[in-house]
């Protein structure tokens, strides 16, 4: 009965089916896994290092580790959770061995000026500056930010990938955001004048 259920589950989940085939010696079955997960793993690596060539090298290393470790996967969680945790571990170690060259957070330029006439370009440069500033955060704050936004703001998924409690991840995210806010004070301009006017008008009417 259990074997039947397991077989049905394998059939339904292409990852499980491919893993089962790989474990029986079918090396080519691993191609299916790479095909399905190459995008996420390369993108995740890209967020860690922001270097395309290096991101692909790191993702390749992650796939190799996955290949070597498939037999040890205990199937306690989903395949993707295991793969992302393994990849995060590979990327973290890789960046410890060869850190990304970054400016200190306080030296990251904030591209913003009232005289600028090229709003679109300016906006793009500013966005890139914020993303690069994430790389300048200390690793303990950088990684939660990278994984939280990689997992489309899913705290549980990011915490599972990092192998830490959700509360710890939330605390680190809050600290990382505070550091970014301190570094980019001009983003505060976003509070619109209209809201302020409405607020002031309301207060004046009351007084």
């Amino acid at each position: 009965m259990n074997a039947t259920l397991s077989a049905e589950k394998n059939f339904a989940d292409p990852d499980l089916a491919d893993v089962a085939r790989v474990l029986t010696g079918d090396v080519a079955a691993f191609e299916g896994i790479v095909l399905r997960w190459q995008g996420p793993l390369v993108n995740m690596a890209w967020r860690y290092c922001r270097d395309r060539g290096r991101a692909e090298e790191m993702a390749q290393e992650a796939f190799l580790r996955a290949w070597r470790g498939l037999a040890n996967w205990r199937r306690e969680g989903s395949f993707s959770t295991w793969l992302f945790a393994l990849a995060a571990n590979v990327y973290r170690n890789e960046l410890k061995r060869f850190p990304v060259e970054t400016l200190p957070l306080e030296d990251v330029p904030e591209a913003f000026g009232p005289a600028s006439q090229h709003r679109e370009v300016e906006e793009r440069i500013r966005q890139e500056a914020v993303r690069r500033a994430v790389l300048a955060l200390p690793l303990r704050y950088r990684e939660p930010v990278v994984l939280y936004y990689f997992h489309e703001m899913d705290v549980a998924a990011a915490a599972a990938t990092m192998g830490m409690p959700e509360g710890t991840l939330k605390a680190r995210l809050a600290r990382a955001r505070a550091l970014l806010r301190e570094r980019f004070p001009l983003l505060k301009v976003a509070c619109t004048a209209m809201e302020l006017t409405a607020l002031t008008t309301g207060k004046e009417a009351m007084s």
Partner: protein
Amino acid sequence: MIQHKTNRTVAEVTGSCREAMDETRIADILAGEGELIPSSGFLASVMERVQQEAVAPLPIPFPWRRALPGIALTAGVFGWGAVELIRQGLPELTSLPPLTLPAALIAPAVQAGWVAMALGVSLLCWLLARRLAGRGGLL
């Protein structure tokens, strides 16, 4: 007074409003990043390395069974030496009878002793290495 109070409240509310907007703004920037498409050769490159790994011979495990007698013997010798040292006491070592060799032979004899010991250690290493590699006998 009322005006002052109103200004402070506006400042406070503005602060919290700005903080919330900052978070949204940073979140928008970080979440709104475009997708990177892996290069066309990525899959082939990964599979090539996987194939290489698959055909590579398994790493040779450390031969614990063969090494165990040697390890036990070494541990035994060192243990016995330590026990003897403690039993006889360190100060007594200095009261060993002096060598009775002629003065002219003392230096060469000491040299020869070192050479003999080095040769003995080398022989032991060679024998141990051969044993670990799975070959018996001297040759």
